[in-house]
C-alpha cells in the first residue's frame, strides 16, 4: 500500500541562493565586470502529489505516483531549472582586447520537477 508523508515546505523543489564570486575562482584579473553574480541552483523534493507551485511536467506527476507505490524501484522526479536568465560579462581576452559578451542561461530563476 502507498503511504503519504507530509514534506516540510523548505525542502520542496525551489531555487537556492548561490553567489559566484569571480575572485574566488581566481578570474578577477581578466574579468572587468561584474565581480560576481547570483547564479542560484535547484534543490528540493518532488513529492506526491505534485502541486502546481512545483511547476512539474505530466511525466513528473506520473513518476511521483509510481514512486509512492514503489519507492525502492522508481526515484522521485528531479528538481531542475525551468527558467534561466542571461548575463553579460566584460573582460579582456588573450590579446588584451576588451570584450562584452552575452551568455545565455546563466542564472536560475525558477525550478520545476
Amino acid at each position, binding site marked *: 500500500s502507498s503511504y503519504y508523508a507530509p514534506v516540510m515546505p523548505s525542502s520542496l523543489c525551489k531555487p537556492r541562493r548561490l553567489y559566484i564570486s569571480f575572485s574566488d575562482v581566481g578570474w578577477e584579473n581578466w574579468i572587468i565586470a561584474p565581480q560576481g553574480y547570483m547564479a542560484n541552483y535547484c534543490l528540493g523534493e518532488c513529492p506526491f502529489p505534485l502541486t502546481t507551485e512545483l511547476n512539474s511536467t505530466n511525466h513528473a506527476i506520473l513518476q511521483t505516483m509510481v514512486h509512492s507505490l514503489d519507492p525502492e524501484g522508481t526515484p522521485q522526479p528531479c528538481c531542475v531549472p*525551468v*527558467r534561466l*536568465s542571461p548575463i*553579460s560579462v566584460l573582460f579582456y581576452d*588573450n590579446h588584451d582586447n576588451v570584450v562584452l*559578451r*552575452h551568455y*545565455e542561461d546563466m542564472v536560475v530563476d525558477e525550478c520545476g520537477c
Partner: protein
Amino acid sequence: LSTRESLLLKSLGLSAKPSPRSPAPVPSVLWRIFQKREIPSPWSPGQEDACRVEEFNVPGNIVRVFSDQGHFLHSGGPRTLLCLEKHLYFTLSVLEDGEQLTMAQLQLQFGHNSYRAPGPGQVFELRLYRAPPPSLRELPSPAARRRLLLAQSFAQLHKLLLFNLTQVGRDWRTPSRNLGLVLEISVSSGTGSSALLGRPPGNFCAGADSFLDASLLVVSLQPGQCKASRKKR
C-alpha cells in the same frame, strides 16, 4: 581545478584563461552597453534582446574593441604636407568559427577637437588605404602599392572620427587578406601651400598631431548561443 576550469572556460567560448599584459582602458561605449544591460528598463523587464546590440541596431551577442597593433610610418620629411602616416592592424583571428561579423567600426581618437583649419583655404585630408600584400611592397611608388579605401576631408578634426569598415572586417576573416590599413592624414595642397611650407611643420599639422590611437569595434553573433530560453511549463 585546472581541468574543470578549462572546460568551463571552453563553454564560455574561451580557449584559455586570459592573462592581460597591458590592459587598455575600457571604452566608454562598452561600459554604457554593459551598464544598460545590468539595469533592465522598468518598462520592459526581461524583454531586452541580449542578442542584438541596440546601440548600433545590429544583431550580435559579442562586442569586442580591438586595439591597434600597427606602427607609425613616415615617408615624408618635415617639409611635406603629410602630418601622419600609420599602419593599422587588428587581430581579427580571435573571432571563432561560426561567429558572424555584423558590424566593424574604426575609431580614430584625437587628444582634442581642432578649431582651426591648417591654413587659409586648407583642409585636412584623411585617407585610408588597404595595406599592400608583401609582393607589392617593393614597388617604388606608394601609389602603385596601395589601394585607396576611403578619403575624407575635414576643415577641423573632431576628437573622435568613426568609419564603417564592416565589409573590410568581413574580408579580414580570411587571415591572408588581413594585412591591415594605412592611415594618412595630410594638409591639402592648393593655394597657399608654399606659405604653409614656410611655417614650421608642427603648425599646419596642429590638430592632426594630437592623434592618440586607433581601435576597431566589432559586433558579432554566435547564432547557436542565442536560442530562445525554455518556456515555462
